[in-house]
């Protein structure tokens, strides 16, 4: 067994510290007779007291609080306590009763218990069966936990749902491991179980509950599984075992017992750590062989109780297109070991071994639905699918049964590439019967017929394709760029930007202008800056209306006049002196500065 120990067990087995409060309820039995009292235990952990109702009102049951007991335990110097309130439940008449949930108040907090079911019979007393957890498969009564002495720390029990089974029949089993709630420890993740002549399903996860057995409170871990007998005869079911590391109540050190016995010490003061293997008792079942009489030819080993239904899709299939016949077999039985249903009347169809998928609705794979999907291709035009037949053995009746699904309506055209069925041709390939290898009948001149690619690289990954597209993309982007620039140049902002550049260039050219050109360039700059075109009158008007100082305006007029003199006066005008040039430049700088703003 895997030495993997789970800590969840510890929390379940240990009485919880005072800071963690918990309430649990349980019945000493879930079946009773009229007048026979049953105990209802309310276990409160992590509290020194609780408010519980004195009586519970359930028609047909008399339920009264009978008493309260307290258990203390010390572990790692931490004290914990468990309170147990015991009710006596006395059935008044027979029937199925539900004891409703009720409130337990602990230090101002309200905890609600779970509802419980009690079955009351009127005849002779039936053996008590420990209550099954809600998620267990229904098992018949029969196994009472072995008689225990008061305080027995642990024991185990194997619950079989049947003692007489057929080969291949799935039998749910439950392994229960009982731990007295006064002890702590850890338990293994899975029990060891198995034996010759039987197969065991994977175990479900451990279910935990509390139960009163012979007046003592136990934590029960139950593991569910299913066994299948593989040969007939009397089958010994070996013991199942679970490893655990337990902290059992211990005794005072040798020679000190008398001393400690003089004091009212809490339980758990001394503990005994032990690794133990808890075992169930071996059992035996009688395994009957499946009868030969009445066994259908197509029986594929299914044992249980089943139902079957089928659907087909698509309802219309073009030439060569497969239709999917889905057959769902549901119920309880050996889904793992059974074979597929068989197709009937499938001449004219090509069928293939079906795929299958199992969906279990319980934790042990006993109940569920197995779906088989047949892919069918019509050899000839078809209006109905093949029928389906499924045979199984029903252990409840001890007889074979047969489920039949009639053909379903479908419109399937014959496959174009598959050869038509010749008369006397054997049936289609079925599950486990692959068709013989068939080479194409004809030997076409493939060198003429075949074309296609001559490279494993797709068109989109080829270098030439990528280069061509990249070139086109670059060309497209270039055109976009040119168009955008042109649009900008033609826009008002673009024009303004261009004019500013011309003005700036004119001013910069002024600094480098030689004496003959200086006045001409100065005039040109003034015209550009004032946006006066080439018109002297307009320039003069703009100078006058500008915000320049009167001296600056006069200087600008003078520059224009000097340009006229230089250009038109006979003999020309003397070149500007250095001082004159500096004076003009300072006036123009003032003009530049003002208009730049």
């Amino acid at each position, binding site marked *: 067994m895997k030495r993997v120990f789970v800590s969840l067990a510890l929390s379940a087995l240990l009485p919880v510290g005072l800071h963690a409060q918990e309430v649990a309820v349980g019945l000493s039995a879930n079946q009773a007779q009229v007048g026979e009292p049953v105990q209802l235990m309310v276990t409160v952990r992590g509290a020194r007291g609780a408010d519980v109702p004195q009586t519970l009102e359930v028609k047909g049951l008399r339920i009264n609080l009978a008493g309260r007991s307290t258990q203390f335990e010390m572990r790692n110097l931490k004290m914990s306590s468990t309170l147990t309130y015991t009710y006596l439940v006395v059935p008044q008449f027979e029937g199925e009763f539900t004891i409703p949930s009720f409130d337990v108040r602990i230090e101002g907090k309200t905890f609600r218990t779970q509802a419980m079911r009690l079955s009351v019979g009127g005849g002779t007393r039936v053996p008590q069966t420990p209550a099954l957890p809600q998620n267990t498969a229904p098992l018949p009564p029969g196994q009472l936990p072995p008689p225990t002495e008061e305080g027995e720390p642990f024991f185990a029990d194997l619950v079989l749902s049947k003692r007489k089974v057929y080969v291949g029949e799935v039998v749910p089993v439950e392994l229960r491991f009982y731990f007295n709630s006064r002890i702590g420890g850890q338990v293994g993740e899975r029990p060891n179980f198995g034996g010759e002549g039987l197969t065991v399903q994977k175990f479900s996860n451990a279910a935990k509950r509390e139960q009163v057995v012979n007046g003592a409170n136990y934590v029960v871990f139950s593991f569910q599984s299913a066994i299948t007998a593989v040969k007939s005869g009397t089958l010994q079911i070996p013991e199942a075992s679970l490893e655990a590391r337990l902290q059992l109540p211990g005794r005072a050190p040798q020679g000190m017992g008398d001393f400690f016995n003089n004091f009212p010490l809490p339980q758990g003061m001394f503990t005994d750590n032990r690794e133990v293997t808890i075992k169930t008792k071996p059992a035996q079942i009688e395994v009957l062989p499946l009868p030969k009489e009445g066994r259908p030819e197509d029986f594929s080993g299914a044992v249980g109780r089943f139902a079957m239904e089928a659907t087909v899709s698509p309802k219309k299939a073009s030439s060569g297109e497969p239709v999917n016949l889905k057959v769902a077999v549901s119920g309880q039985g050996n889904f793992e070991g059974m074979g597929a249903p068989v197709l009937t009347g499938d001449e004219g169809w090509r069928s*293939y*071994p079906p795929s299958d998928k199992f969906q279990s609705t319980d934790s042990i794979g006993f109940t569920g639905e197995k779906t088989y999907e047949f*892919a069918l*291709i019509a050899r000839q035009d078809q209006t109905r699918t093949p029928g389906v037949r499924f045979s199984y053995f029903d252990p409840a009746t001890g007889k074979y049964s047969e489920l039949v699904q009639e053909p379903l309506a479908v419109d399937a055209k014959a496959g174009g*590439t598959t050869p038509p069925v010749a008369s006397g041709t054997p049936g289609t390939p079925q599950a486990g019967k692959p068709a013989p290898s068939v080479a194409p009948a004809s030997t076409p001149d493939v060198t003429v017929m*075949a074309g296609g*690619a001559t490279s494993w690289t797709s*068109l*989109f990954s080829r270098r030439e394709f990528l280069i061509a597209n990249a070139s086109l993309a670059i060309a497209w982007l270039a055109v976009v760029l040119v168009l955008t620039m042109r649009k900008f140049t033609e826009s008002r902002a673009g024009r303004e930007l261009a004019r500013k550049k011309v003005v700036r260039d004119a001013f910069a050219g002024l600094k480098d202008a030689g004496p003959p050109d200086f006045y001409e360039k100065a005039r040109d700059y003034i015209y550009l800056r004032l946006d006066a075109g080439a018109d002297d009158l307009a320039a003069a008007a703009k100078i006058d209306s500008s915000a320049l100082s009167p001296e600056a305006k006069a200087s600008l007029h003078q520059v224009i006049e000097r340009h006229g003199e230089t250009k038109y006066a006979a003999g020309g005008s003397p070149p500007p002196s250095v001082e004159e040039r500096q004076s003009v430049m300072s006036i123009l700088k003032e003009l530049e500065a003002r208009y730049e703003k």
Partner: protein
Amino acid sequence: MKNRLALVFFLALGAFARADLLSDARARFQDGEYDQAAKLFEQSLEKSPPSAAVFYELGRALNKTGQEARSALNFRRALILDPRFAPARSALQEANVALGIPPVKQGWRTRVVERIPLDALGLAGTVLFWAGAFAGLSAFFPRGFRGGRLVAGILSLLLGLSLVLAAWLCDPRISLANTAVVLTNGGSSLRSSPADQSEKLASLPQGSTIDILSQRGRWFYGQAPGGTKGWFLTEGIVPLIPPP
């Protein structure tokens, strides 16, 4: 000049050698020497660009020698190169029947590739796309905006894009780039984790295809045809598209 002449000479010699191999392979096939024919077809494929016809012929030769899984692999390769190659499709169906592999329902991609040459579709889409892109741009040329040209350009661009997308999605050289075929005798097992003792999720018969998603050591992580994902041993699993 001499070097060029030598190159042309050697290229011509190579072409003749390949042609000889193919002729020899076909002759062997006709004579019923299928093993020899298969070897020669394989040699021819190693020395020349892939050809749907030669893969098909190789598949037929392997089929005759009873190697159904390998023959199915080569029929599949022929169909990747030429999805409209009907004899290869028919031969693949037959080989799959022999291997016990159920047919897969034909999807829209298969239907498209069976009818339309994909490279032509892709090229037509590309031409339409760029024609639309430039036509749309011309609407903004000087001499005034032209709305009609813009609309026509956008439509052409979208149509071209759709055709390119369709060709991309349908091209088996792209969609089957990560697909492999089980050639191991007895098939392969799909396991829940990359360990020999891990839970077996499914069995895949010889000739089944797997979509490879990743690799870890001697294990592939992949998807079986039913959609179940898990781990496969790499041994005996061959990529559908031969590695370069």
